[in-house]
């Protein structure tokens, strides 16, 4: 079935951030469906559910209760089923250690949560419109962290 929208999922324990995230997509003129989850466990449960439609892009916060972003990422990367899903790390931190870790674990892009709503919109629109095939093939440590 040819989808005419982009399915996006976010796992973030922070309610405000989930709000900014959905608001931003609401304001963006891109045809997207956004699902949000409160932690990694919820996200994985959804992904593993047989009736779930797999998202195109998963946004993963790192600092989450129950199952944090890193462990969640590891889980997702374990299954071939999720190979086609692009994974964007979406975190307040941009510490070298976090960036390095997630890169090594196979995330596709790293986004530092901006402190300005307009910037957020810009970043999300950028990520959603990325040609993932092209991006992944030339992925390296330098372009992994999204800079605007």
């Amino acid at each position, binding site marked *: 079935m040819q989808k005419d929208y982009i399915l996006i999922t976010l796992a973030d324990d*922070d309610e*405000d*951030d989930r709000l*900014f995230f959905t*608001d931003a997509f609401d304001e963006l003129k891109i045809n997207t469906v956004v699902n949000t989850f409160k932690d990694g466990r919820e996200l994985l449960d959804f992904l593993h559910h047989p009736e779930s439609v797999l998202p195109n892009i998963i946004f993963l916060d790192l600092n989450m209760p129950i199952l944090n972003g890193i462990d969640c990422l590891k889980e997702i990367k374990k299954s071939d089923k999720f190979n086609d899903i692009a994974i964007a790390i979406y975190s*307040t*931190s941009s*510490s070298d250690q976090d960036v390095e870790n997630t890169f090594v674990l196979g995330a596709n892009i790293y986004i530092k*949560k*901006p*402190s*300005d*709503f*307009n910037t*957020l919109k810009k970043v999300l629109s950028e990520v959603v419109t990325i040609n993932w095939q092209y991006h992944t093939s030339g992925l390296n440590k330098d372009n992994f962290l999204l800079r605007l």
Partner: protein
Amino acid sequence: MRKNKFKSSKFHKIIFTISLFVVLFIGAITYKHIDDVSTSSKQIMHTYEVNLELERLFSYIKDSENSMRGFLITNESIYLNPYYTANSNINQSFSTLKKLTSDNKKQQKNLNELYEIIKKRLDYNGQYSDPDVSKHIEDTKKFKKDFFKSSKLLVAIRNKINEMADLESSYLKKRNSLYNEQISFTPVLTLSILFITILLIVYSYYKTNKDLERLKEINNSLNKSIFLNSQAEILSSFGTWEWNLITHVTTYSDNFYRILGYEPHSFPSTNDNFLTFVHPEDKEIVLEIMSKVVKEENLPPSTFRIIRSDGEIRFFRATGKLFDEKLKSKTVLGVTHDITDEINNNLLLKKNIEDLKKVNNELEIFDESSKQAEILGNYGSWVLNFENNKFIYSDNNFRLMGYEPQSFEPTIENLLLHVHEEDKEIVIEANEAALSNDEIPTMNYRIIRKDGEVRRFKTVAKSFIDLSGEESIIGTTQDVTEDYYKSKLLKERNLELEQNIKELNEFNHVASHDLQEPLRKIQTFISRLNDKEKENLSDFGKDYLSRIQRASDRMRILINDLLQYSRTNRGDKNFNNVDLNEVLANSLLELSQNIEDRKANIQYDSLQVIKGVEFQMQQLFTNLISNSLKYSKENEVPKIVIKYKKVKAKNEAILKDNSNRVYHRIRFKDNGIGFEQENAEKIFLLFNRLHGKTEYQGTGVGLAICKKIVENHNGYIFASSEPNKGSIFTIYIPKS
């Protein structure tokens, strides 16, 4: 030298005289023998003559008889003539015989008897010699009687002559044997004497040869001693001289000239000439010596100076002795010694002794001060002599153990009595190590003092070989009880501090990290408000909103800086090669917007590759350049000059390091607003700001980070400035 060397000539004379006598004796003996032999031969000849004459006489008698008989028979007077001739011959022969036997009385007597007989016979014949008488033959009776008688007489004559001849024969026999005796004895004697003479001559020749050899030897040793003497003169720089007081002739040895600085015999050796060399101030002394030596037999040694040919002043010591009879002339023999070196050596020795005294004195002072130092520094020293295994303790070493100085014998056993039970092993092992020539470890052990107090001691020792080559161990023992507890406390504190810092860093990181989240949300909400609700706000509301926004912005900067600071705090020590040229280029790229905005002029040298942490160096350069841009003058184009130089620590006064350590020196010079020099250290402190928040944006973290980074690299950072004149930031990073 042997005294009997002239004895040989006396011996020679004796040998020679004896030889002469022997030769003379041989001559005399030979002469006598020859004489004896000739006498013997004469006597033999005489005997033969006598015998011959006797024969002749008898033959004459027979002739006369025959003639008589012829006459008588023939009665012819012709026979008378031979008769007479025979008679005269008899007489002649007789007288000859008489002469021949004149020395022999026995033969004389015989001859006389013979004469009587012959006369009687001739008388008988005479009676018939007359031619007339011949006729008387007819008287036969008488004739017959006479003839008979005459015949008888003839027999008597023959007997007599035979008797005489026999006698002469016996003489001959006797003489012959004597002669033979003499003849045989003579060559034996002559030969034996000759033989003795030859022996004597050979012996004396041998003796002479031996004497000659000895003479040669003596001559050699004499030559040798002359050579040695001249060498001795040269070696010990002295000269000898001879001054004949009668002839006034003075002679110098070769070296006497040399010590005056001349070639031997290069000027006439006279006293006047010598005086020209004498130092003017010492002429009196020398003249006095000369006048004294003439009178006195012995001259005490006297010292004076001379000026040598090369102008050098030398010290001479001269001594002489007058020899009156021994040399058969009044002569002074003297020795002159160049004692300059000796005097100099004495001076040197004197100085050395003085130096030694001085050093000794200093040593005493040092000893005293080290005793004081021992008391002040709570330490004692000791020496363990390897030879006798004995210790020597300094006074304070006893005091450390709670004893009066030298109040017990310092032995390992006595020491162990005071060592804490648990630490005895340490001391025993160290002592064994010392005795087996191993390295002596530093010992930390407890001592129970005389008063029962437990003290902590530390001992270091080292083997030591003194000037005489004797090996010993010198050690220092210190009472480190206070230090021990202090350092123990310090260690605990350090540990606490490390823990604190760790916690602080964690706190810092977590806090700034966790603080970011609500702040980011606040800011996002502000941006939402600004976008969506700004129009609905009153002017007050708008103003408040913008103030909230500024405050939150500032908080963001603060948090970011803090994060950065805590990150540099982690002390990443993974040093790699960092090309500062690249670092600078990156920094300029990072700040390009800012630089462009300010139209800043940035000049820089070619930099070097250093060992460091790349991202920290990046941070350092960015911070410093952005600092200069930030504090630039509003109405002036910012100018930043970056200079590089490789320097030595000792040439950089500010480092207060006199070593040859090499540093990379990088200078950032700007023309900004600068600051008071008194604040030069303050600006590197965390959150320290010299300007109001509104004037210049800044958190007071940037330079603190710079300092942190430089210190992480074991380097130094200094700032020098003057308000309105610009600042210079100088970084020193050690080379490797």
